[in-house]
């Protein structure tokens, strides 16, 4: 049996199982697949789906681009000049496990409730992983290539631009995919707590404004699908 058929059947089975589980359970609030599809239709037809998706994507784009612009060059440089990596490394290692969500109180304090907070949180969440990926990628550049570059008399910056960056490209792309995944997770979380629009907000709003769990799950599905599309887009573009 061809693989895509297996996938299609598995998805169909999952949907049916979901439907059955909901019908059999006591929890009257959890929606079944039909209710969710209707809710999706409702969101799409009122234009809210589109607007919220755009808002979330907007924030991700800004926060993520800033993080790349700051994190990648610094990371490449640090990875290349070993001494820099040893000096800065421990601090980065310490900051990394701090959940971006732990920054929410500070974000609200500095930026208030709105786009800036979300963008800040996305930046915080992705800049360190990107920096570390870039460091790792720079260190992975073949010694032989580095020797050849110095042999030809290239300056430090030139080496970074003409040798390190192209060599590190594959590893960088892998790291960017992971960081984009993080950014997407964080924007949703940030919107649930610190912002008044976007797909994350839509989930919280749907529940608060009347226990509309069908809208909640519809929102979750949209988030999942868009996240998947983002990942595929990066994979294609690389």
């Amino acid at each position, binding site marked *: 049996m061809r693989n895509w058929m297996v996938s299609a059947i598995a998805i169909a089975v*999952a949907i049916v199982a979901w439907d059955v589980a909901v019908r059999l359970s006591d929890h009257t609030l959890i929606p079944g697949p039909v209710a969710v599809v209707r809710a999706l239709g409702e969101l799409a037809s009122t234009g809210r789906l589109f607007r919220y998706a755009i808002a979330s994507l907007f924030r991700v784009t800004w926060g993520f681009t800033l993080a790349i612009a700051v994190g990648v060059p610094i990371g490449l440089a640090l990875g290349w000049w070993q001494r820099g990596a040893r000096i800065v490394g421990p601090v980065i290692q310490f900051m990394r496990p701090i*959940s971006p969500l732990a920054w929410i*109180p500070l974000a609200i304090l500095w930026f208030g409730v709105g786009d800036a907070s979300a963008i800040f949180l996305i930046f915080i969440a992705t800049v360190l992983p990107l920096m570390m990926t870039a460091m790792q990628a720079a260190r992975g550049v073949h010694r032989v290539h580095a020797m050849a570059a110095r042999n030809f008399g290239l300056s430090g910056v030139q080496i970074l631009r003409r040798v390190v960056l192209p060599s590190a490209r594959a590893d960088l792309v892998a790291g960017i995919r992971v960081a984009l995944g993080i950014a997407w997770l964080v924007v949703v*979380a940030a919107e649930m707590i610190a912002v008044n629009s976007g797909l*994350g907000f839509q989930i919280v709003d749907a529940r608060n404004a009347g226990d509309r769990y069908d809208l909640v799950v519809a929102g979750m599905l949209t988030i999942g699908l868009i996240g998947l599309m983002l990942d595929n887009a990066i994979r294609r573009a690389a």
Partner: protein
Amino acid sequence: MRSRLEALAFALVLLGAWQLLHGKVVPGPVEVAKGIGELWERGLLVKYALDSLRRVAIGYAVACALGIPLGLWMGLSSTVFAAANPLVQILRPISPIAWIPIAIVIFGIGEAAPIFLIALAGVFPIASAVAAHVRTVPPMFVAAARNFGLSEPQIVRRVLFPAVLPQMLSSLRLALGVCWIVVVAAEMIAVDSGLGYLIIDARNAGKRYDLVIAGMVLVGAIGLVLDMLFRALEKIPSVRWGFR
């Protein structure tokens, strides 16, 4: 030795800058240190840290118990992969936080909800990663095992599993990091103890930003320790070969 001193110096410079530049509301390192001391005296530091660690331990264990076998199976059988992968790929980008409303509906307020979220956060990355690692095992190893007449279950146990172990350890370490990040978020709702709860409550119940940052520092420190413990596992001889 010298580079450690330089690293320390760098960290101190940053702390110094923070102390000098902090505004009125955001506290500097000195106040944060005092905040940590206060938590210690009130007995909350240990209690909250243990609460968070306990939730992560259980959630992470569930994630491993589900994710590793699933990943192995997905890696071994392209049919299973075709069946399970679409679901994994759709569910994975959904932030665990987005599951909170559903988690509360299913589990109510209490320990189960955060543990569910943590397990959720860990299971998809683990399954995905393990499936990928299985595919990178050199076919030569499996061929040699077949040559010696081993049965399929024996091949999985004696060849495939040890062969993926180093890469799997790396992925498990990263997944633990993710779970640790999520526990903080999971504790922002639905519970009344733990480091995540501390961070939110300190702000809401009195704008104690010194405690907020103290909480962040503790989260960072414990996360770092967990990571280092895991890395120590990588030195064990029967996996060290994978980390050259």
